[in-house]
């Protein structure tokens, strides 16, 4: 069973082994509104926790999405280049943003689980 974590910045992180898939939550996509562009990271890029990994742009504004932990980009969701609205229609599914290899999984300790996140946004 993959483990899913949530951050205070409204990202979700699904961890399988030392690979993490990262996206923004449904709550976040709703706040942002219709996305028109997603600036994706290059495969192989090294990230430090807190680095801007992706920029999602709505009609009105650009918002940073941060790396939840140190690691390296394994894959970016190329579908978003032509269809950024996938993040709106399926934030936790087809609208995932990137996959990364985690350098230190323990950096995710202390992040929220779904119940805690729901309380956070409640």
């Amino acid at each position, binding site marked *: 069973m993959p483990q899913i974590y949530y951050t205070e910045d409204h990202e979700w992180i699904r961890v399988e082994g030392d690979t993490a898939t990262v996206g923004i939550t449904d709550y976040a996509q709703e706040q942002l509104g219709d996305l*028109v562009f997603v600036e994706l990271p290059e495969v192989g890029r090294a990230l430090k926790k807190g680095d801007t990994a992706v920029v999602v742009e709505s009609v*009105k504004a650009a918002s940073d999405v941060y790396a939840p932990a140190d690691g390296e980009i394994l894959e970016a969701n190329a579908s978003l280049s032509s269809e950024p609205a996938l993040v709106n229609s399926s934030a936790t599914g087809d609208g995932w943003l990137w996959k990364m290899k985690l350098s230190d999984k323990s950096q995710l300790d202390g992040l929220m689980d779904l119940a805690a996140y729901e309380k956070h946004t409640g």
Partner: protein
Amino acid sequence: MTDVGQKKLPLEDLHQAAGARFGAFAGWSMPLTYPPGVMKEHLHTREHAGLFDISHMKLIAVSGPGAATLLSKACPLDAEALSEGQSKYTFLLTETAGIIDDLIVTRLGPTRFMVVANAGNAEKDGAHLEALAAGLDCTVEPLERVFLAIQGPEAEAALTGAGIDTGLLTFMTGREPKPGWFMSRSGYTGEDGFEIGLAEADARALAAKLLADGRVMWIGLAARDSLRLEAGLCLHGQDISEDTDPVAAGLLWAIPKPLRTQGTFVGADALHKTIALGAAEKRVGLKPDGRQPVRAGAELTDETGQAVGRVTSGGFGPSAGHPVAIGYVAAPLAAPGTRVFAEVRGTKIPVDVHPLPFTPHRYRKG
């Protein structure tokens, strides 16, 4: 949820009931989007009719025998020459011809005019007009009104359906259809439409009737911004300000020809000098290459990397189907098709100077 310290719209409860998401703008808590979202709201306005609560904007009545004199002094405008019912887009200028605010002035009668001012500038405008009115026989009276805009190709039909006679109004004309009402055929979307100032109780009744019409829905400030941006219309505080003049802003069309070389309105000398010398930079439309929006504040450079201008408004144009922006470039680069580059997060995005508007205006000129 609204932030403390921001003014609330009189109809805020209606927006809350409609599920609006609120945000701060010019000191007001404004509905930014409704559940359909900015994209659908924008396209709905272009296809049908959108209802906007623009009560943050201020109606200022200027009345008295000296009213026309006051307005012709405050603005590069021949107020005396306006016919009854005629509206005119104009400005308040500083002594250096900077734009204090852009306004729509409508002549309602021989000695009575209505001025529509921007939210963030309304107090400043009122005080400015008051100061200039000293010694003139006229009053400057900011009105307490709800202000609604209905915009789009079905706006007229929806108003008629709601029992409002649009009379003989054509684009840029206005009148007082009932006591306490002000209605003009104008707007900020590039579409045909109307703006109606009225008392709160009347506004509630009108909004209810309009929203009962399937062609009409509430439209938030986010779509208002994307609509006006596609239409190439300036937002004061972004595209024009006291640091820009009507020549650079490409708004000379709003100044009657005789006043471009003579006249004693505030800022006349500076304006005439700027017209004679020509503007060093010009406001232009900008079409970014690709899908990445270029936003206000982005620097513009030429291919050698030299700074040549800046973006003042930018976003995505839902009707245009691509990013759209407005900005200023050095005058020699203002011809459509000229390629410049916008610096966005360290990347240079190619941007072409593009004619304004991005989407054709569809005003009902009669």
